[in-house]
């Protein structure tokens, strides 16, 4: 009897572990800066945003020092965009595997999305350090931080499944992904607070689930305003919807991966 997709995925969970482990090991071995890279990326972009938006443009930041405000957003976004761009290219980068051996294809993008989580953990720890430097103490709600991670991962995986499948089918998708992520970043309240968006447009922000996620991460860490459960629930709902669509699209297309890749 053939098992269904989820059962097979579960049967191959050890391979998922090995793939994540391989991705991590190789990434840290091959880059000169290794683990430091996880921190440098959000820190440097925060510095740039701080100079241009915080200092020069006097961007408001909900009463929090701008660097802390921007860094917390960038830490979340660095994970998301890193995971999506890495996982979207994961099938193409592993084409050698796809054409030579069978295993649940879903393992590859899933491993890609998970393998960036340690980077996010490190970036989060640095975020806490940054808060202390600016004389802020993380609120008790910071304990909710781990609960937000699955929401972020669900979103990243859903988007990655769609993009990874498109990437196998169409060769120009690869060039569109960085552009797409950059647009997405500016539509997400990372370098600006939701409060500067005019009231009548805010409902539109709900359509971008990453907005709710970034906002929730920031609210739980800073405790300067209540966590907006409604927005977060909308983000999770949208995230699950994207994941379902991604899973459906991926599993329908995976039969032909080896033929077209």
């Amino acid at each position: 009897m053939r098992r269904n997709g989820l059962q097979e995925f579960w049967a191959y969970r050890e391979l998922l572990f090995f793939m994540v482990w391989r991705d991590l090991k190789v990434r840290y071995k091959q880059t000169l800066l290794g683990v430091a890279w996880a921190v440098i990326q959000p820190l440097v972009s925060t510095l740039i945003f701080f100079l241009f938006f915080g200092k020069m443009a006097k961007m408001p930041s909900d009463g929090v020092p701008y660097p802390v405000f921007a860094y917390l957003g960038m830490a979340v976004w660095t994970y998301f965009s890193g995971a999506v761009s890495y996982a979207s290219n994961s099938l193409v980068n592993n084409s050698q595997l796809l054409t030579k051996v069978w295993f649940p294809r879903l393992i590859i993008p899933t491993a890609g999305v998970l393998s960036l989580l340690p980077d996010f953990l490190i970036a989060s720890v640095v975020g806490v350090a940054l808060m202390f430097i600016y004389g802020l103490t993380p609120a008790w709600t910071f304990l909710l931080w781990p609960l937000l991670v699955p929401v972020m991962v669900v979103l990243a995986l859903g988007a990655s499944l769609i993009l990874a499948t498109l990437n196998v089918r169409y060769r120009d998708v690869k060039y569109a992904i960085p552009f797409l992520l950059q647009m997405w970043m500016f539509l997400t309240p990372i370098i600006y607070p939701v409060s500067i968006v005019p009231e009548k447009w805010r409902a539109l922000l709900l359509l971008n689930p990453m907005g709710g996620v970034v906002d929730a991460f920031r609210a739980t860490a800073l405790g300067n305003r209540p966590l907006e459960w409604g927005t977060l629930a909308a983000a999770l709902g949208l995230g699950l919807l994207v994941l379902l669509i991604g899973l459906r699209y991926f599993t329908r297309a995976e039969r032909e991966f080896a033929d077209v890749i």
Partner: protein
Amino acid sequence: MIAVSAHDIRKQYRLGELKQGDTMLREAIVGMLRGRGRGRQLEILHALAGVDFEIHQGEVVGLIGRNGAGKSTLLKVLSRITYPTSGHFTTNGRLSAMLEVGTGFHEELTGRENIFMNGSIMGMKKAEIAAKIDQIVDFAGVQRFIDTPIKRYSSGMRLRLGFAVAAHLDPDILLVDEVLAVGDAEFQKKCLDSMDELRGGGRTVIFVSHNMAAVENLCRRVIWIDKGRVHMDGPAEEVVRAYMGTFASAQAGGADLAAIGSRAGSGQARLTGAEFLDRQGQTLNFIRSGDALTVRVRTVLHETIPDLHVGVEIRNEMGLLLSISNNWMTGPSLVRVPAGDHAFDLDIEALHLMPGRYYLTLWLKGPDSRNYDLLENCLVMDVETSDWYGTGRGIDPHFGLIFMPARWRTGALSGGDA
């Protein structure tokens, strides 16, 4: 009990899709806007055109056939890498496919790490790999380097490591694609022995190979695939003999190639014949190690060919490629060759081959690897021993893979003369 049964398996490719990297999202969107009806007419390639067979548990079956006949596609279908266009198959038990040695190896990881990675990709459990790792390392013979990244391994070591993992898979059904064609002779033997062990273990094995000696040695039953169908299915010896009979028979002087029906290539130029000649242009009745030899390739061109490349490949009986000679590499260029009959002579100064049987593959190509004609193993060349050294001892094929015309000289540094 039936281990594998296949019912009318068909696999079609639309030829446009085969070329990597030619589909653009931009084009697809434009195509969708214009309506699908006016899409490109794609040529359909029938890689498998209805394959049926049943294999019992414990059988070791050889799968033979020319390149492009569908053997590899069939293995890929059975191992679920690709899906059949129609038809279905059932497998009974845990199945592993070895279509390549060392799938998933990563340069930066150590030998040990790669064993875990590769084993797990092939469907082994972590605990299982951990229990067998000593045996695997032992089999590969890489004990000293097991914690070294494999980017420092030689290709031979990598191959041995990959095969060692595969040899410890322990599946009920094993699919093996031509993986033995590489590696040194000693390791090849070790692999064949381990395959032999598999046969004793009641395991079902499907084995694709061009190495007829290995196929005959390992398999009792052989399935011959031709043009995507089962052409013949029966006792190994019978099928192999029938199959080899379709290649050029072992004629001393050469072969008439015009009659061969199944050909690859576009056909603007065709191979029509080949002859073995001596320096005087006389047909050779026998060929000896060390002889000067001319291979005359006869062709017919149906149109003017702008840039013609003629190639001769020599393989030994194990299917190992020994040498390729073509005029693209060696010159002269053949530009604007007019339509008509042409013969091209390949002069071999001295045949550096051990006595034995060799197969020649001939091809006519153009630039951009365009194929006009390709005949695999179309010519048999039996090389006899010769007294090249003048010692009366001949040339012994046990002394290596190639014949090296070398002589010892003495007295270069003999003492006394200061």
